[in-house]
């Protein structure tokens, strides 16, 4: 099953909405709660990254009986050095974003921890695509 949500850059009051909607769906599909937890954490971090760092984006989630595939694409500044961005504690978040309680530089490493596969592709000044997979029935 396919689900899609738009994500608006800079709108912190709505950050987390798309992840919450997906969470509801996963609960209804009776997916293992441990998997739901991991998936929702990863989605939330990726969603907030769009809100905090990009201009506009989209969340796509495909739920299958054996896996959940998630893709977040955005139009934004892109990531120059993905390896560096993955490091714990690395952040380019602005002071405003930090004041909102984000910008610890933990998001991407948290995503890595909570998913089975993670691919990030990015073009500077164009945008970023984050693809994540979580396998079911492995808990």
């Amino acid at each position, binding site marked *: 099953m396919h689900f899609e949500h738009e994500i608006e850059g800079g709108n912190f009051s709505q950050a987390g909405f798309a992840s919450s909607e997906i969470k509801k769906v996963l609960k209804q*599909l009776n997916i293992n709660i441990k998997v739901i937890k991991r998936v929702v954490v990863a989605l939330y971090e990726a969603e907030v990254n769009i809100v905090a760092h990009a201009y506009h984006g989209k969340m796509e989630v495909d739920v299958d009986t054996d896996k959940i595939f998630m893709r977040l694409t955005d139009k934004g500044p892109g990531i120059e050095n993905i390896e560096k961005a993955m490091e714990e504690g690395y952040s380019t978040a602005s002071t405003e974003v930090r004041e909102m309680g984000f910008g610890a530089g933990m998001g991407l490493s948290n995503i890595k921890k909570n998913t089975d596969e993670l691919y990030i592709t990015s073009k500077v000044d164009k945008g970023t695509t984050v693809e994540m997979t979580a396998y079911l029935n492995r808990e």
Partner: protein
Amino acid sequence: MNKPKFHHALKISKDICIGCTHCMTVCPTEAIRVRNGKAELTDNRCIDCGECFRVCPVNAIIIEQDDFNKIFEYKYRVALVPAVLIGQFPAEISTRQIYSVLMELGFTHVYEVEHGADILSEASNDYMQDHKETRPLISSFCPAIVRLIQVKFPALVDNIIHLKPPLDIAALYYKQQLVDQGIDEDEIGIFYITPCAAKIAAVKSPVGEKQSPINGVINMDFVYNKVYTGAKKISKDSCILPGTGRPTAESVCWSLTNGEAENIEGRTLAIDGIHNVIEFLEKLENEELKDIDFLELRACDESCAGGVLISGNRFLTTERLKNRAGQLKSEQLKEQETSGGISKYQAYLSDHLNISKVHPRSMMKLDENMTEAMKKMKRVGEIIKCLPDVDCAACGSPTCHALAEDIVQGEADINQCIFIQRMFEEKGILSTDDARGIMKQIWGDDKLKRNC
């Protein structure tokens, strides 16, 4: 496998119910539907929070208590009284007078529940230390919240602290104390004067415990009326002293908002009101909230001072208990005066403090089987597109979305939607008579027979 039965203290009286939509639309777990002109409760969704009881315009929702005469089946009849009972009365009625009325009603012992909180405060802090990997930990105090988490936030069940609430600790303590005086355990009946339906459910079908140490429950509104009329007849001098020492200032406030959180080390938050709690748990489940150590969550606004069986005003009750705590603090009671001897039982109680794992029982899932659940979800999506998004509840389900799910689960028909009926009538698929028949099935005969 037998389906587990959940005891609910909330019952709908079919004779009194007028089949309106108040309870259905306010229920936080969508546990109510209207069929044949009467509200019906779905057992495995109800969490006994009592929101329906508050809004029912004709008092058709009943909180089932034990027959008062059940206390006389026991030779030793203990009334376990929560502080909020006392907090409801104006200052002119003393604690002693209240106790005296309870003795006149037939109890042989009257004890305050809150003594159990002193043991719990220390135990909770130890538990926090021993479970550093789980954060935030959630209090097990309010049974409606424990049930809410089980049915609606299954991913959070492991955050619930596996310790008994003060009520169970107090009950264990008083029972053991009497047994140690040489009294036969079978002769002791412990009765809790409850401020809410949730606590009744917790006594009758406990979560994480095989059996509750409490033998029966008496609704607080019943006792309130007896005390109000009885207290004035009892002179202040002739009345009885509380059986044990007086509670500590901290424990007197335990059941109020922040009463618990204030005693827990670390970053704690206290949230009251079921809808506030739900909003917060949604965020917590997404791990949007970090670095919180402890959550005190209560179903009622102003916590137990706002319990559904509390007759007094919740803000005044809170005020009076805070004043009482202030008084207790200023008197600087000695240890033996406050502990009521509970400290002697510390070791025994510590051994009996734990509850077992709390199991999720999600009501959210559309089907056990994921492939089936996906099919059902697709159908819900298709049905939703046909429904008007009005959430008028005229179909007998609380929202359009709930109707769509009910249809998919085989518990309702799309014809129950009045907008669909109109469209079908226009297209000639449905006759006016048929539409009338459907409405009768939901709302009963008389709502379609009004004189006008």
